């Protein structure tokens, strides 16, 4: 019945338009601009507002027409097991920097290794860390960037002070962050859900504000720089006779440092993954999951929920501390502006998008969210479409939003919505229960 369908599409489009109008009225219909007296004056932008509403209307209208407007129940899809996926990914990640250098030359490769390699891997590491707290133990932490900051500042402060190299400081950064995870963990043990989230959020703000205001130590907004950087087992990455390149008889290239950092982060990330996966098969990891499911039942089964929560918090924070140290090494500069709430939100988005609990999903989400928003910066040709003022990098949050909406629509349980059973039985025969698993239960190894 096309007429009926049309009518429903119209109705849905009408509602969508109303919602968009309500949302965009305060931010789009008027713009506050300073006038010549430097007072804020409202400038109406009604045409733009109407454009937004029209776009919403048309979009929803055609979407409704096209999709029929009804939720479709998709048949359960059984994912094939992909045993070769892990080794393949690993091989790809291992040759990546060398391949990029070979293809683009050392100068152009710098960006690809640093921004797309090291940076994304740091976020993967962060995602896996937060996944322990949020995905496994179910403790919603909105202030994860605080532990990231602790790690970064720990390195930036301790490296010049103690003269220790990063090999020694790496675990120190992790432990300091874990210690803070422990400290914040204690008072919030009794809290759950929303309250926990709010307190972690507040904690992260406190850390950031302390970093801004404790000038003597942290140099405030200006941040810290000039601390010792990366070295290859004592050989600094500098030109000249005492550098890494000279020692191995190679020509000096800036990219060597990046390649080393890349492999360092890769190894640490893989180590973190290994630890996560192992822990999940151990009683502690199972206790985290049980805690997420039902805290009262946990206690009635003799589990000390306090310790379980604390370890989940502390281990998550430990990973963030390591990542913070790597961040400091990568940037050579740390400042409070790198550890704002949006950083916590981004890491949380990675975990949620990854489908809480799945290692592979988190990694894919990190590649997507971080990689894609970096790619946006590259799309300079869009300037020729939207005019020279157009800065595509500003639309990265839009991208995150779109990704979330798309996910809610298409993969409501996360990109890789599987959690490999932590227990594998000796006979993996397909018993009768196999058919009863809901969609996506059997899946890609995670």
């Amino acid at each position: 019945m096309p007429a009926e369908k049309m009518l429903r599409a119209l109705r849905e489009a009408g509602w969508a338009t109303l919602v968009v109008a309500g949302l965009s009225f305060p931010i789009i219909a008027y713009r506050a601009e300073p006038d010549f007296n430097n007072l804020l004056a409202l400038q109406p932008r009604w045409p733009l507002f109407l454009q937004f509403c029209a776009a919403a209307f048309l979009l929803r209208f055609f979407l409704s027409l096209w999709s029929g407007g009804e939720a479709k129940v998709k048949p359960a899809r059984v994912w094939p097991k992909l045993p070769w996926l892990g080794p393949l990914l690993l091989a790809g990640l291992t040759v990546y920097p060398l391949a990029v250098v070979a293809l683009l030359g050392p100068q152009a490769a710098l960006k690809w290794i640093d921004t797309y390699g090291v940076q994304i891997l740091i976020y993967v590491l962060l995602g896996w860390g937060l996944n322990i707290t949020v995905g496994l133990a179910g403790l919603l932490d909105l202030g994860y960037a605080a532990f990231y900051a602790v790690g970064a500042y720990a390195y930036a402060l301790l490296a010049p002070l103690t003269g220790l190299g990063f090999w020694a400081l790496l675990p120190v950064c992790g432990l300091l962050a874990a210690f803070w995870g422990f400290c914040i963990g204690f008072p919030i043990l009794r809290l759950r859900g929303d309250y926990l989230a709010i307190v972690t959020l507040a904690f992260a703000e406190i850390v950031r504000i302390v970093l801004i205001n404790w000038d003597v130590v942290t140099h405030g907004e200006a941040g810290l720089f000039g601390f010792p950087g990366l070295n290859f087992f004592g050989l600094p990455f500098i030109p000249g006779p005492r550098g890494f390149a000279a020692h191995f008889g190679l020509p000096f290239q800036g990219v060597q440092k990046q390649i080393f950092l890349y492999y360092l982060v890769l190894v640490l990330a893989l180590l973190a993954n290994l630890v996560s996966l192992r822990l999940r098969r151990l009683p502690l990891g199972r206790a985290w999951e049980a805690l997420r499911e039902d805290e009262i039942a946990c206690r009635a089964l003799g589990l000390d929920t306090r310790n379980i929560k604390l370890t989940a918090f502390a281990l998550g924070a430990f990973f963030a501390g390591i990542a913070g140290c790597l961040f400091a090494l990568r940037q050579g500069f740390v400042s409070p502006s790198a550890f704002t709430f949006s950083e916590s939100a981004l890491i949380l988005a990675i975990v949620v998008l990854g489908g809480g609990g799945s290692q592979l999903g988190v990694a894919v989400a990190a590649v997507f969210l971080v990689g894609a928003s970096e790619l946006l910066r590259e799309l300079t040709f869009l300037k020729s479409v939207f005019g020279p003022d157009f800065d595509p990098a500003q639309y990265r949050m839009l991208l995150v939003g779109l990704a979330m909406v798309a996910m809610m629509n298409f993969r409501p349980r996360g990109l890789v919505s599987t959690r490999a059973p932590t227990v594998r039985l000796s006979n993996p025969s397909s018993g009768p229960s196999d058919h009863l698993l809901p969609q996506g239960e059997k899946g890609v190894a995670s």
Partner: protein
Amino acid sequence: MTALLSISGVTAFYGAVQALRGVDLEVGKGEIVALIGSNGAGKSTLMMSIFGNPRVRDGKILFDGQDITHMPTHEIARLSIAQSPEGRRIFARMTVFENLQMGAAVAQNVGFDDNLEKVFAIFPRLKERQKQRGGTLSGGEQQMLAIARALMSNPKLLLLDEPSLGLAPLVCKQIFETVKRLNEQEGLSVFLVEQDAHHALKLAHRAYVLVNGAVTMSGRGADLLRDPKVRAAYLEGGAH
């Protein structure tokens, strides 16, 4: 008979609402004790307060002579008291097997394989479903899982809150028979809260009737079964 669990003068509150008004109750070693009462009488509250949730306000709870009134919940569980709580509280997103493992956690996995075999013998259905997630089990299967999980820890005392809830009569009968067998063969003490007063009283050595947070009657199960007041309040209409 020495008391394994002894509850004396226990009161409990939910905010200002008093749920228990001075309950005295005992479970002897090797005994099956049933607690019956109408909806909202406070049966589940009493059972949970043994685990400290809610904490009792007055009174004392002794287990094996040890005062557990103010002990943290997880430490109480470690004294080999196991519970199949109301509402089952199984771990929905973990597999059946993992749920059973969690049940054994408190016993440090001592005799895990034997216990597993034992509960799978009692509930063959769980063996079939061991890779399935708890939350996708049927209601009755979840009830079986909750009971099986409680049995995994080699308990001395087993607390069952409405084990028959949602189970087919045949399975329900099986569970009662299992309880009886465990009691006779292994000396397991059982404290049973039940709506199905008829079966509960038949099974139990002794029983208590809870009305409005206070025990109004107690005695041998068989005696209560014949008592006209008990019959009128809890059995008639559902008579067998």
